[in-house]
């Protein structure tokens, strides 16, 4: 029994036949299910692993047809028209498919029909291996419940209230009445089931996997051994990346321990890369901290977030420097997080705090179109209030416990708040900025908010 947290309640996500026989159903809350079966065993659902399993299954299903699409509720849709004869007809194909799945321990339900809607209905609500001969789809659907058409829950309930439970009843009804009462969706599904309306099947795009793995006869635990194996895996992965002119932005190394625990190490790269030495160096630190337990007997390396990286002419000078910097950013980013290695880019705003954009250095190029405009401080900090009143620049003030005396003041530079954006720091309205030279030497950037009279220090000049 697999449960899943939906909203605040644990609900049944998937259940076996015994549980179904006991009267449980999908979507039921776990508490209700427990009341029906006190000795219920449940585990939480892992949706991402379910999804990747289904994707693996979709890849496998391409042995039967090139057009395989993944659908919701763990469904695979295969377009076998024109491919069935290769396996000796539809019947043979279906039994081959189900037989293979059963041998690998999977319970699957299947249906073959002219249209996707009918096939889905047969698979879900039929016997589990139903086949509709050409042109007989509607006849086969006749005794199935209306729910099988894949309608909204609300529509199903109101149909049931009207006493329409079977698809056959629905198909015999007048179209105008149905359209008025239930909207277009119902008719669309019905037409799709008949084959009057085409349904688009979007096949799963084959995603090339760049990975390599190695099984070891004897478990290893030494850092040197693992580095050696990693190097060989990297060689294979990087060669396949190079062949496809692709580069990876992330790499994941999964080490299976003898006691069946997985150790996963993921590294990020500041630029798409496929260089063996550079990537290998980034793994060094994590491998040293890896917990090997009783030993590792299988290592898998995968390239994730693969993007295009065309071959380049080798040059001297700048390219190399950029590579070095990208390596450094990768190293730092893997330890402190890529969001904490930043670059500043110019932006169009009069508000000093918004006159630049902070972006992750790994995902941006340096900008050089900085403009020198008004007098701006070298250092800025969050505004620190001063105990001073009045509209004029205070002649004496205390800042950070230091007594300051104003010698010269330059200003004001009035900056208006961007009223179209609600910035909590600018709720007090416009600001008058002043450059203040103090007798103590420090040159400060003060501002005054005329709407709510107060003085603040917000920056320091060179």
């Amino acid at each position, binding site marked *: 029994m697999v449960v899943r947290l939906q909203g605040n309640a644990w609900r049944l996500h998937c259940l076996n036949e015994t549980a179904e026989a006991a009267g449980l159903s999908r979507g039921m809350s776990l508490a209700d299910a427990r009341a029906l079966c006190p000795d219920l065993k449940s585990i939480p659902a892992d949706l991402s692993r379910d999804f990747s399993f289904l994707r693996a299954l979709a890849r496998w299903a391409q042995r039967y047809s090139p057009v395989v699409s993944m659908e919701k509720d763990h469904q695979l849709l295969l377009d076998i028209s024109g491919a069935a004869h290769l396996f000796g007809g539809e019947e043979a194909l279906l039994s081959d498919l189900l037989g293979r799945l059963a041998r690998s321990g999977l319970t699957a339900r299947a249906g073959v029909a002219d249209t996707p809607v009918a096939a889905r209905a047969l698979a879900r609500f039929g016997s589990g291996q139903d086949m509709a001969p050409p042109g007989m789809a509607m006849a086969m659907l006749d005794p199935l419940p209306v729910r099988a058409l894949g309608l909204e829950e609300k529509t199903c309930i109101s149909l049931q209230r009207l006493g329409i439970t079977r698809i056959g009843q629905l198909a015999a009804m007048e179209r105008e009445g149905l359209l008025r009462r239930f909207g277009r969706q119902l008719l669309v599904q019905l037409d799709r089931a008949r084959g009057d309306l085409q349904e688009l099947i979007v096949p799963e795009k084959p995603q090339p996997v760049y990975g390599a793995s190695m099984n070891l006869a004897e478990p290893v635990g030494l850092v040197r051994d693992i580095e050696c194996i990693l190097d060989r895996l990297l060689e294979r992965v990087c060669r396949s990346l190079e062949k496809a002119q692709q580069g990876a932005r992330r790499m994941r190394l999964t080490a299976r321990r003898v006691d069946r625990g997985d150790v996963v190490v993921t590294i990020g790269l500041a630029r798409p890369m496929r260089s063996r030495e550079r990537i290998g160096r980034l793994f060094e630190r994590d491998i040293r901290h890896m917990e090997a337990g009783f030993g590792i007997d299988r290592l898998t390396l995968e390239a994730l977030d693969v993007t295009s990286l065309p071959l380049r002419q080798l040059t001297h000078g700048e390219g190399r420097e950029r590579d070095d910097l990208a390596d450094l950013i990768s190293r*730092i980013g893997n330890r402190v997080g890529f969001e*904490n290695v930043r670059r500043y880019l110019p932006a169009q705003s009069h508000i000093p705090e918004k006159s*630049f954009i902070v972006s992750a250095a790994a995902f941006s190029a340096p900008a050089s179109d900085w403009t020198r405009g008004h007098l*701006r401080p070298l250092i800025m900090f969050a505004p620190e209030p001063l105990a001073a009143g009045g509209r004029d620049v205070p002649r004496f003030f205390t800042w950070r416990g230091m007594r300051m005396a104003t010698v010269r003041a330059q200003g004001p530079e009035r900056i208006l708040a961007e009223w179209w954006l609600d910035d909590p720091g600018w709720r007090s309205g416009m600001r008058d900025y002043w450059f203040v030279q103090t007798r103590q*030497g420090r040159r400060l950037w003060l501002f005054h908010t005329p709407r709510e009279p107060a003085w603040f220090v917000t920056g320091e000049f060179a």
Partner: protein
Amino acid sequence: MSGFGPVLKRGRVHEACGAGRFFFAARMCARQEGPVLWISLQRERERIFPGGLVSCCDPGRFVFAFARCNRELLWIGEEGLRSGAVSVVVAQVHEPVGLTAGRRLQLAAEAGQTLGIFLVDRDKGSPSAESRWLCTPLCGDGHEGISHGQEKRGIVSDSTPFAWQCIKNKSGTLKCWTGYRCGTTNHLTLVEQAAQPAAAPDSSV
């Protein structure tokens, strides 16, 4: 008169303290070519403002790294110095760098031939620093670098006088520079003063 001002040795880590240390570091970065790694803590109050930095050097050269703790900051510093990918590493530190850490940083700087500048609080320097600079902004009358005639016409230079005082130097003498930057032309004028004894009284930091 020396227009070039102090020269910091590459492949070593230097320290700067005092209220003018940011300007000192920015000026030293402007003198070097190539990218700069600027490291500070995430909770750091004083952040470099690119709009003001642009008057010293191109902010596009800078990569800013934000460390969660002092230990991480030192690690980033060491990595940056050793890699040789950047020409200058600037770090804003608040805790004194220990003897071992300081030595490691020096070795890393030597390996990468990188210039390291650590911005430290007053009296929190590390004994391993190659040199230490006390940078103090001075109060000027606003007439530096302006001829008498211009002054009479009411032109203010909005200059920024300051003093850079070398208070520790492992390989050389202690010197002191005073200078100012012309706000309009951005030209830096530096005057070398006679050597002064270390530990000048300063209460502003």
